[in-house]
């Protein structure tokens, strides 16, 4: 690291009106033109730290202690006017969701120009206009005047994020905070945006703090990485070292939980979930989920220990962790063994399916088949029609032509018109477990619904069966009287899965079921799905945008784009030698941890 331009020492941000902290003991530095990745799962406090670099705290938080020095100035001691001057000019911010962060009522041109008007009042109108157009060119946006007259809603998601980039780089700041700037974007757009960030940072010598939950993205961009867990930085080190030889158990397990684009690998999740500020244990916050934990872990939080050049960790057992080498590497599984079914009459068949939203066509003559015991993945970016396809199969999107067939019989388009046996046989698991469970029903009531609808069971019998289904998805039957808001995201998704299994289905449609979950939880859920698919001989229709996940779980894959299937074949053949240009582009743009570490050897 060269001369640090950002120094943070002893930063503590408390939860207003309580003794709890959101983050504490935050110490790190960023060198000039250095890109530092700050990774952590949801609730780890990473965004809170990112915003603190701008001297900003969201409602409910207060900066209670610590120093933030940027370019030699102590940020927390500045008055309002000086702080405003520093924001944007010395330290700039790129938001997670530009569609929410751009003002809907103001023209793009004004939002760009005001940055210069406020921070560089010396410029006259013509100069300012010229600079704005230069900025647009730098981020590869159209440089014509009409573009400046547009409003946010007239831009695509990628363009909106580029406007945010242009705004952030406008005043040539010393450091930029990027808060998950590509989360909502498709991989192709993400790749372009990341490339622009990299180029601009290098060109103008701007330091960056890149906040993200996505290790693969951070691996491809950052020089150095900080890993946060439950409000503390638990490990920090150069990206190359940290991903190859992590010293903290959390980092190791996080890496093991990430699906790999380049090979099929069993995922290993982390049991349990991260504690919220009010529920953090004494001692090491990761201890309850850690298989290295000993008595001293539960008694005292370890202090920062430097174990190599620029590599530090907070763990009592880092030596053991690093020594154990490949203990966690998942067994490299081949294609899941599946029963060879009769290919002429597949369990589920979709033939020439075209669907509409109102008058807007979203699917064009899509055909695919699914056999029992098989996992068929449908891959595609947002707007490719993959969710509509899933909904047509489940009878939730009745405006389509073509045929959906179950065991050779053509189905009614609308679920309500389908016979009970069909509704039972096809079960749907939704993307967000926060939306798919009625918050006013208990877990027991939720899982029992299909039992009452499909099987004539009594109350007692239903309760027994619910308990059994909960156990099958690795949930404690003690949760039966809980409400969804008392469960974590991963637990909720398991409840949704238990509800689907309660119907004793033949086909399970999984629509982006892990996209609302943290990677450690995602891994555990995928493990479970694969296990259930084998043991129940389920046909799994797995909808996702995550190609690495497909490699992990699916047997075959259909790649969708613009409402059409552009390629459909065995997973290994699609990933090994993609036929369609679109698939090749998708694969090339998907970020991967491999830029730093050949995982199967190091973890």
């Amino acid at each position, binding site marked *: 690291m060269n001369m640090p331009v950002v120094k943070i020492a002893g930063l503590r941000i408390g939860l207003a009106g309580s003794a709890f902290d959101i983050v504490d003991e935050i110490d790190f530095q960023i060198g000039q033109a250095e890109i530092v990745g700050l990774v952590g799962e949801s609730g780890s406090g990473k965004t809170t730290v990112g915003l603190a670099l701008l001297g900003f705290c969201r409602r409910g938080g207060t900066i209670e202690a610590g120093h933030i020095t940027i370019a030699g100035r102590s940020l927390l001691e500045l008055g309002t006017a000086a702080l405003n001057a520093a924001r944007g000019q010395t330290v700039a911010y790129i*938001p997670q969701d530009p569609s929410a962060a751009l*003002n809907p009522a103001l023209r793009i041109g004004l939002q760009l120009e005001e940055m210069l008007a406020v921070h560089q009042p010396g410029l006259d109108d013509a100069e300012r206009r010229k600079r704005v157009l230069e900025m647009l060119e730098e981020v590869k946006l159209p440089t014509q005047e009409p573009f400046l007259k547009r*409003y946010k809603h007239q831009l695509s998601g990628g363009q909106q994020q580029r406007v945010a980039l242009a705004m952030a780089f406008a005043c040539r700041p010393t450091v930029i905070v990027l808060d998950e700037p590509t989360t909502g974007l498709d991989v192709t757009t993400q790749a372009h945006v990341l490339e622009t960030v990299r180029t601009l940072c290098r060109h103008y010598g701007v330091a960056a703090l890149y906040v993200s939950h996505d290790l693969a993205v951070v691996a491809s961009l950052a020089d150095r990485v900080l890993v946060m867990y439950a409000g503390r930085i638990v490990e920090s080190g150069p990206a190359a070292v940290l991903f190859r030889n992590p010293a903290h158990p959390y980092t190791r397990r996080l890496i093991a939980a990430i699906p790999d684009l380049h090979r099929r690998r069993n995922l290993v999740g982390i049991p349990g979930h991260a504690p919220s500020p009010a529920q953090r244990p004494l001692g090491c916050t990761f201890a309850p989920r850690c298989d290295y934990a000993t008595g001293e872990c539960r008694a005292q939080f370890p202090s920062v220990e430097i174990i190599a050049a620029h590599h530090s960790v907070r763990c009592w057992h880092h030596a053991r962790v690093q020594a154990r080498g490949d203990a966690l590497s998942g067994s490299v599984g081949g294609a899941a063994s599946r029963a060879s079914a009769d290919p002429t009459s597949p369990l589920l068949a979709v033939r020439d399916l075209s669907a509409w939203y109102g008058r807007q066509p979203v699917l064009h003559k899509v055909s695919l088949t699914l056999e029992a015991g098989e996992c068929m993945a449908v891959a595609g970016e947002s707007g490719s029609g993959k969710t509509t396809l899933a909904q047509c199969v489940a009878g939730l999107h009745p405006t389509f032509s073509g045929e959906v067939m179950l065991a050779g019989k053509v189905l009614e388009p609308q679920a309500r018109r389908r016979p009970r046996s069909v509704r039972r046989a096809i079960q749907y698991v939704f993307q967000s477990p926060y939306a798919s469970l009625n918050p006013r029903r208990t877990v027991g009531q939720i899982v029992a619904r299909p039992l009452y609808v499909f099987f004539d069971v009594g109350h007692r019998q239903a309760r027994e069966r619910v308990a059994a289904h909960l156990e099958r998805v690795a949930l404690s039957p003690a949760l039966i009287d809980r409400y969804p808001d008392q469960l974590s995201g991963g637990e909720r998704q398991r409840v949704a899965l238990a509800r689907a299994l309660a119907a004793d289905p033949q086909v399970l449609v999984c629509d982006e079921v892990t996209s609302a979950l943290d990677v450690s939880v995602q891994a555990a859920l995928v493990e479970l799905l694969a296990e259930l698919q084998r043991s129940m001989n389920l046909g799994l229709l797995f909808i996702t945008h995550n190609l690495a996940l497909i490699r992990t779980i699916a047997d075959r894959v259909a790649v969708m784009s613009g409402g059409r299937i552009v390629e459909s074949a065995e997973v290994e053949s699609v990933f090994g030698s993609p036929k369609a240009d679109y698939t090749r582009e998708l694969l090339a743009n998907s970020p991967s941890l491999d830029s730093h570490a050949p995982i199967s050897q190091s973890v």
Partner: protein
Amino acid sequence: MIRLILRRLGLGILTLWFVSLVVFAATQALSGDAATALLARTATPERLAALRAQLHLDDPVWLQYVKWLGGLVTGDLGRSMATQKPVAELIGLRIGNSAFLVLVAALIAIPASMVIGIASAVRRDRGVDHVLTMLSLVLAALPEFVIGIALILIFATGFFHVLPAVALLDDTRPIWQQFDQILLPALTLDLAVIPYMARIMRASMVEVLESEYVQMARLKGLPQRLVILRHALPNAIVPAVQVTALQLAWLAGGVVVIEYVFRYPGIGQSLIDGVANRDLPVVQALSLLVGGLYVAFNLLADVVTILVTPKLRTSLQ
């Protein structure tokens, strides 16, 4: 954009037509043989017959409606059954009086509620905000006649005898020269509508201030003044416009009770007299007028909303 506005206009006219149906159904059709009901005590065969003819009561119901609506469209509001004068003549002057009252009230209420709403949103959860919120909570609950009578008790009787308890308008002088007569009724109307309007403005402003684009504006280092006026206000104004329209329409209804309290000679008084005398043509004309005002104000609010919302304004480009 033009198409959007025309669509709203069409919907407004449609609503107005349905409003006329409701008015007709609620009065003439519902009361069955209105003539006998109306003249129960004073009925002589001749008067009964005259009344039937006037209301077209011998026709089938649908034809009664068509004739009534035809009259309305051609400007014939019928004759008052109580005074036998044309309704238009009876309520013409009074419409002016009421309109002036509503106008005065609105000119105070709109800016006042905006300022109060924005000020308490910006100072959210501090002293001023709490006091204003509590005050508006109390005032918003009170029925308008309670506010009116309370004001009379305070300003026109025992405590300070400074303002007239009863609005005695002199028809020979222009109304704007008799401001002292209007002050209490207008104040009552304002106290009834400002709390609600200010509350909506506050809520809308609070929501916008919490938005990510306002957070972004702060993180860009813009001064507070720019953040509030340029980034927050244009977005907060939209819900306020809709509510303002509703409240202006409400003012048209609110005057009914207020005018009765202050015995102010406006359409409210006429409506109440009409109801008391079961003078159907008067009631029909006035309730249609009030309903029409609602439709008109809403239309106006829709147009303003379209104009201040870029997404709607650019919908055709």
